[in-house]
């Protein structure tokens, strides 16, 4: 199954990174970045059919709300990886800034949905 491949990949690269960290700490971060990017590539390939299925079945309900949800998902994934990388290399300040930025972006892209809810609420109440 795919999960065993992912775990094997992570364990092998974890050992390599701890080895490289022994000699040169700055290289360990680069190795960590490469490993997380490789894993993210693999996860995106796994995610491809799921997203296609979501878009296909979102045609029944209105299309654009699902697009916003997908966009929020993309922002969250990218921001989370960057945040974890910063935390691993010890830069907590950077990690928190990335977290703040991703929250603002998510809020910004969720506002139209909120607006539609409010409008429908107002029409119900009148």
């Amino acid at each position: 199954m795919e999960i065993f491949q992912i775990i094997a990949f992570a364990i092998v690269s974890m050992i390599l990174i701890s080895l490289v960290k022994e000699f040169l700490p700055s290289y360990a971060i680069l190795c960590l970045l490469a490993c997380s990017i490789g894993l993210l590539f693999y996860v995106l390939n796994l995610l491809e059919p799921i997203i296609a299925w979501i878009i296909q079945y979102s045609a029944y309900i209105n299309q654009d709300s699902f697009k916003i949800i997908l966009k929020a998902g993309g922002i969250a994934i990218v921001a989370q990886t960057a945040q974890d990388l910063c935390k691993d290399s010890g830069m907590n300040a950077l990690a928190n800034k990335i977290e703040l930025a991703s929250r603002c972006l998510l809020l910004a892209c969720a506002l139209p949905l909120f607006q539609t809810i409010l409008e429908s609420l107002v029409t119900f109440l009148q």
Partner: protein
Amino acid sequence: MDIDLVFKIAAIGIIVAVLNQLLIRSGREDQAMMTTLAGLIVVLSMLVQQISDLFINIKSLFNL
């Protein structure tokens, strides 16, 4: 799942580290720093290509 990328970077890291120690022991600290810098730049150039591919992939997948 290109594990060979991680192997490549780990190999470069170890080689540069050994070179670094070698140069430091033989008294050439500045050249040691140069080799470390060169290795870093090589790895970074490889990584930048991977990062741009990743972002293009994410952009197309989540239609950001």
